[in-house]
């Protein structure tokens, strides 16, 4: 098989809806499984995925998501988000997809570097103690760009 020209994947995760968080995690893990380096930079709402108190409560967006095939008014009803999230988690469990906390452990053990965005951490008044232990550090976006240090690096914004 031909060797991939992609050597390093850098993901910027800016959202906290389950579908976006899993997209980043699956791509980062998939990269490592292929022998490609991977790092994730959590910024803005993406930070929820690495806050110990919040990461287990991430949800699917039922409003403003046309692929839910649900009228916006219905999606906005109380309990709809929780219901849709429960359904999606059930399906994910069937495919042996780990929950967010376990997924972060897997990523870290697989050698994926996990970074928090300095500006967003300051903006949300967070401290290191609010974030997961596996975090590799808090960086500025400039620091993160400097992680793109090999030929064949790709940066993806989610």
């Amino acid at each position, binding site marked *: *098989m031909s060797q991939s020209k992609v050597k390093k994947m850098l993901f910027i995760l800016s959202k906290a809806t389950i579908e976006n968080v899993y997209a980043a995690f*699956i791509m980062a*893990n998939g990269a*490592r499984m292929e*022998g490609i380096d991977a790092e994730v930079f959590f910024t803005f709402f993406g930070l929820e995925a690495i806050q110990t108190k919040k990461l287990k409560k991430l949800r699917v967006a039922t409003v403003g998501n046309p692929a839910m095939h649900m009228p916006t008014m219905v999606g906005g009803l109380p309990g709809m988000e929780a219901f849709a999230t429960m359904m999606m988690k059930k399906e994910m469990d069937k495919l042996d997809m780990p929950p967010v906390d*376990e997924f972060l452990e*897997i990523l870290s*053990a697989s050698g994926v570097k996990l970074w928090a965005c300095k500006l967003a951490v300051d903006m949300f008044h967070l401290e290191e103690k609010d974030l997961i232990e596996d975090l590799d550090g808090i960086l500025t976006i400039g620091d993160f760009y400097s992680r793109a240090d090999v030929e064949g690096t790709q940066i993806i914004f989610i």
Partner: protein
Amino acid sequence: MESNIAGIILDVTEDGYLNDLSQWNKEIAKEIAKEEGVELQDKHWEVITWLQEQVKKEVTLSVRGIKKSGVVDIKEFYTLFPGGPLKKATRIAGVPKPKSCI
């Protein structure tokens, strides 16, 4: 596709995975490991045996499964088979290439 590994003509896929686990033996494993740049130690054999057992039980292989295996943890797994551990380990173990994305 046919391939000559360790002096035996083997039935393999395009990616070099054995089509028939019954053709597998330790000599073949060592040859494939050499191609993959892995030198097999005791721990590698433990993982290989575990992988073969899982496949016989028709369990889908994934990195999460490795974590729960009790044989090896993920960090060690990546150290044992650097650069695409599940792909390399399954090829050496003579089992099909995993189709899982996780």
